């Protein structure tokens, strides 16, 4: 099973993360951590015309959490917020190819999605409070 988890692509994103860093003047900056493992993720969003014009993540943690964050940024780059806000847990797990994770490690894989959704809730909370509220309720991540 370890062989299934730590495939080339996970190790590649772990060692060479995409979109890693900070965005100056980001519209949203949001942070969360996983107290179990101490994984930490910051997400920076630049939103233009309802689209994620730029996304970067910063953080430290296990290969699963960091690779997952790296792949998530690729998933949502240049996508409309309306699309990004509907990304499900399963989509993320399928995208990174880890559908068999146990309950402890699944939190590592989904931390970045949680942070992204927290970021969007934060973004919408000024502009469309009802959307923000609905997102928070629907996300099952908080």
């Amino acid at each position, binding site marked *: 099973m*370890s062989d299934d*988890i*730590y495939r080339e692509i996970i190790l590649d994103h772990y060692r060479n993360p995409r979109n890693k860093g900070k965005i100056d003047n980001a519209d949203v900056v949001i942070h969360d951590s996983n107290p179990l*493992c101490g*994984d930490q993720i910051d997400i920076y969003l630049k939103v233009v015309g309802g689209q994620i014009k730029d996304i970067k993540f910063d953080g430290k*943690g*296990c290969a699963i959490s960091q690779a997952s964050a790296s792949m998530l940024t690729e998933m949502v780059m240049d996508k409309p917020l309306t699309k990004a806000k509907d990304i499900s847990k399963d989509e993320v797990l399928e995208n990174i190819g880890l559908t068999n994770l146990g309950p402890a490690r699944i939190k590592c894989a989904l931390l970045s999605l949680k942070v992204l959704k927290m970021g969007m809730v934060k973004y919408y909370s000024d502009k469309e409070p009802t959307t923000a509220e609905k997102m928070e309720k629907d996300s099952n991540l908080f």
Partner: protein
Amino acid sequence: MQLSELETNKIRNDFPILTRKINGKPFVYLDNASTTQKPSSVINKIVNYYSFYNSNIHRAVYDIAEEATNAYELTRLKISKFINASSPQEIIFTRNATEAINLVAYSWGRKNIQKGDVIILSEQEHHSNIVPWQILAKEKNAQLKYLKIGETGNLNLNELESSLDDNKNIKLISLSHMSNALGNIIPIDKIIDLAHIHSIPVLVDGAQSVPHLKTDVRTLDCDFLAFSAHKMLGPTGVGILYAKKNLLQEMDPFICGGDMIKEVHKENTFFNDLPYKFEAGTPNIADVIGFSSALDYLNEIGMDNVRNHEIELTKYALEKMSELKHIKVYGDANLQNRGGIISFNLGDIHPHDLATILNEHGIAIRSGHHCAQVLMEKLEVSATSRVSFYIYNTKEEINIFISALGEAIKLFQL
């Protein structure tokens, strides 16, 4: 003297869980600093209580209630002997070591810590020996001072000595005798002597030390000692606070309700005698009773043999680990200054990934910050992997662990 192979095998037969297979491999349990496994005698003692004399204690007059009360109090007596306390009245049952420290922070702290006072901790404390003091300090406008630790996790006694000389506001020193993250054993006896020159009480967090080192509270002369049953073959849900009687007498109760009272009137209450003043409500009767069998088990082996067995295993593991590439081991290299705990990192493999890989080999190790984030910051890592040993671990298990580390190195292409 260390435990012979024969004795270790005999011990292993007493632990049913060690016959398990995990992912098709023999179960290798190396997370004893977190909690230890339980021998059949402890499990049976609990089953026996629930089967034959389950009843509430300290109240009813019928036979089984008396049996339960006697068994419960017998554990208290055994604990007092185990740590050489002057009297069972100095043994307070809590849920765990954490609650024992909270009890002191609440009852002793609120009475004795004032604005501007200083509480001394160290950078390698477990969160349970940081957070209660932080809250107390905020409430009282007091300060926390952290003794710095060096590269290998050693405390600088000179720093403590000069602090004690210079700062008249220091009111308490609270330190773990053995670090749960690094395994370092601090010279607690010297620290207590220094503190007492200035009449400052010392709380010893013995969660890691009492299960592994012979502990004598009268020789140490510590003022408070907190530890947990589940880290020394006993059940979960039983913590112990030892405190000197005169301190306990002056302290107000922590949790209030039934059993901790003598008389209750509409406007006031007379509290019960020690130790009952600190034990409100129905306690964890079954598990306290179960703990007595754990103490019997450890007494039978002898704490010196426990210690020597762990030194031997730690020495062996450190030697084998040092042969691996990309490994960084933390803590003191001197075996006399460390318990059977080894924290390490392997290349850029995150500890959680390593723990997942080892689990595939049937090996249970701990990964993470070990509830010691202040220490992790100091070491400039977010997490470490940790193995920790107890009486039933063997060199054969260490060989399995080492070879699994080799597999992880291959998998991560280090």
